């Protein structure tokens, strides 16, 4: 399973802060994004950043592992 987390405005639009998604071998970050974008287009309109296992990922073609923690994030507004 892949755990997907949402925070702030993205979580608000998804309507929840966590989803469990079935893992598929060879699955890329962009594949997962594509799947979820179809389900939550309004939330994903805000997404501009992603993190895998707590680390910012710039390469959307990165291959995910089973049990990965993935976060799709809008621009930060802390501070």
């Amino acid at each position, binding site marked *: 399973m892949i755990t997907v987390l949402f925070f702030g405005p993205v979580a608000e639009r998804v309507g929840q802060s966590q989803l469990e998604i079935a893992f598929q071998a060879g699955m890329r970050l962009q594949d997962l994004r594509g799947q979820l974008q179809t389900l939550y287009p309004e939330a994903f309109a805000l997404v501009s950043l992603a*993190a895998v296992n*707590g680390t*910012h990922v710039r390469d959307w073609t990165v291959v995910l592992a089973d049990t990965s923690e993935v976060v799709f994030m*809008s*621009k*930060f*507004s*802390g*501070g």
Partner: protein
Amino acid sequence: MKDAVRIEQDDFSQDEEIRALQASSKRMGGIATFLGCARDFSEGRAVSEISFDAYERMALPEMQKLREEAISRFGLLEARIVHRLGVVRAGDAIVFIATGAEHRAPALDACRWLIDELKERVPIWKKETTPQGETWVTPHP
């Protein structure tokens, strides 16, 4: 002594943070700080409170990395970063940065760099409660 980098609910004392910063060295001649606080007015709307959401697993390590980068990039003697979560009201502290160096220029440069980078790199989101309802803040471009 409290950690140099923290994410916490409670308010903190600037005097205590400065004392902790100074405790690291007697060679510190310049200390710069930045305190970001909640305003009662934003984008033309009254704001009664601000709350936060954070991806803490990433936020704290990012803040720790920022501190280390600032220390080596500006030759600081020490730096501290505190970000509050929970709910804050007008006048309350949100974020605090303190930088200490032998002379004033690196302390001032590092302080500005840290708050600018924190806003870009630390996964925290701010929600303002106004008479019209709640709104997640969109960062200025």
